[in-house]
């Protein structure tokens, strides 16, 4: 929960979080090591210095650290788990629905648990999807079209089996399809990031919502072009958002394009935790103002109303969260933030 200076409480759903295990013990091979190293590169390159973790902590930070960073230190009210299996690189997988479910069980009102599927798993994968729905009541999946599987180095939403899985999602009510379309994930070539297959899928399955994680960057132009034509296409801001700290002018250009093409109703905040911490990102986002020249040029604004939608209301709509009811539910269990701060101040005074 973020409180504005005027005392308004902004309800926040973090659209993109992970509980991963990238530790050496879990790495199957050099790829596993390099994968978490690459994430750490993102973390150190774009985080404010005081938020940079030591590498050991980053490799495996654990459930309670996550809870604390999102909901106690950070302003998230809820968070969506986006699993990343990567079983070719990690013994138990990198960040699976099963691992994430541990936290979901402990804090059911805090987390939205998503599943995943891979069309190359054929019939067995369809069955596994049914099990996920039965066991965890999932409403969404995270898809990784560039994931390796044996000799295959990726797949497309236009593949025949992918179509079957999406049809199954319609039947099962798994209506939120999060697709990773962003930078640096094991591509042999750039095609792995191509956003064109989203266009086809969004047209074929109007009952589903397609949330394009990372807004297709560095293919923002293609993504915007598709999103304008397909009302069921959304943009996830993970990876675009951290630029707000190190390159605010650049962030202004990206967010103003997105506001111009998609408007404030189809953008979702995501921290990509633990790559970045929601605490600083939400603070900076809430404090952020677009320059007048951009407002005038593009005819867009990142006003409080847009911020409310991006930070929580849009995701609440997609996942059927009744915000006032949920706020009330959480206030019973919410950590006393004021008290936390006082403790921190006390510690500071004592020189701890």
């Amino acid at each position, binding site marked *: 929960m973020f409180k504005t200076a005027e005392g308004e409480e902004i309800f926040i759903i973090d659209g993109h979080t992970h509980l991963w295990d990238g530790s050496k013990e879990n790495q199957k091979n050099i790829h596993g090591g390099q994968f978490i190293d690459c994430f750490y590169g993102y973390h150190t390159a774009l985080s404010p210095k005081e938020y940079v973790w030591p590498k050991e902590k980053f490799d495996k930070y654990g459930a309670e650290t996550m809870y604390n960073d999102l909901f106690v230190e950070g302003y998230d009210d809820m968070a969506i788990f986006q699993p990343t299996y990567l079983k070719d690189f990690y013994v138990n997988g990198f960040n699976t629905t099963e691992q994430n479910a541990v936290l979901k069980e402990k804090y059911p009102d805090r987390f939205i648990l998503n599943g995943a599927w891979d069309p190359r798993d054929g019939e067995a994968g369809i069955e596994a999807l049914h099990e996920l729905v039965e066991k965890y009541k999932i409403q969404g999946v995270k898809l990784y079209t560039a994931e390796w599987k044996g000799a295959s180095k990726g797949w497309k939403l236009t593949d025949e089996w992918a179509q079957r899985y999406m049809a199954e999602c319609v039947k099962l009510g798994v209506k939120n399809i999060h697709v990773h379309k962003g930078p640096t994930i094991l591509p042999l070539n750039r095609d792995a990031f191509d956003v064109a297959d989203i266009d086809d899928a969004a047209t074929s399955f109007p009952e589903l919502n397609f949330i394009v994680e990372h807004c297709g960057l560095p293919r*923002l132009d293609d993504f915007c072009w598709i999103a304008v034509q397909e009302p069921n296409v959304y943009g996830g801001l993970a990876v675009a958002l951290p630029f707000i700290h*190190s390159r605010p002018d650049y962030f202004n250009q990206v967010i103003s394009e997105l506001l111009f093409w998609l408007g404030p109703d189809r953008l979702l905040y995501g921290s990509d935790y633990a790559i970045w911490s929601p605490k600083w990102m939400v603070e900076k986002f809430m404090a952020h103002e677009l320059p007048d020249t951009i407002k005038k040029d593009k005819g867009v604004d990142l006003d409080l109303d847009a911020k409310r939608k991006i930070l929580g209301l849009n995701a609440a709509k997609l996942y059927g969260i009744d915000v006032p009811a949920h706020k009330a539910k959480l206030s019973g269990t919410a950590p006393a933030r004021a008290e936390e701060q006082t403790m921190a101040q006390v510690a500071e005074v004592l020189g701890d």
Partner: protein
Amino acid sequence: MTVHVTPGDPRAAEVWASLASVTDPELDESVTELRFVTQVEVDAEDRVHIGFRLPTYWCAANFAFLMADDMRVAVSSLPWVRQVLVDLRDHMYSDTINEGLAKGRSFKSTFSDEAANEDLDDLRRTFRIKAFQRRQEAVVRYLLDRDWTVQAILDLDCTHLATLAIDDAEAARQRDRYLEIRREFGGPGDMAFTTAQGEPIDPRNFAEYLSLLRRVRINTEFNGHLCRGLLQARYGDPAPDGEPTLADFIAGRVATQVAKSNTGGNDGCRK
């Protein structure tokens, strides 16, 4: 890894200079400016050894191959060079790419994999177009900021643009880079600004055209910012701002150490 130079061998400087003309296709910036090249050595048989690295282990293999190949071609054009050996390090396809290059294979035959059925020349062309658009946008933006009207900008010819008094060093560099790539594009005549297809730009759609160029720039900058940050995080380089760079070396100054020694298993960790 340090930059190895045969002391007093002016040929190393020639190699650096020719490498400076090779760009990362996606970023449209020189591979030496980007600090991708870490090592140049000339051996007793006039063979050139080039060591290079990329921001991540996962950087797209087609781009890695393309850059390495461009380096080989650029350096091979020096008259005294007998052979160029490019060594890509710390990349998931290091061995495959290095072997493919050494044997003079194409990207396709190096990756005889279903995912590699692409033609690098098509890729080159795609990114050349983006480079053209990006460079053009920088010049047009400069002129607009100096209160040039759209019509005056569209009326400019190359000759005038080349001799235009530009007070800002970076803007002048952008202008020169644009004119350089303008030769590859552009239709008949001497018009300074055409579309990438060589068509005149319609002043009535100028705003729309400009916003297309802007989006190209946003994508390229996204890559640029990320790549720099990731490279720095991975190799613990000093931030390039205000630090001596390889360009200092090319200008005949003392070579600087550009990377910490990297002993095998690089954990990308900065202490």
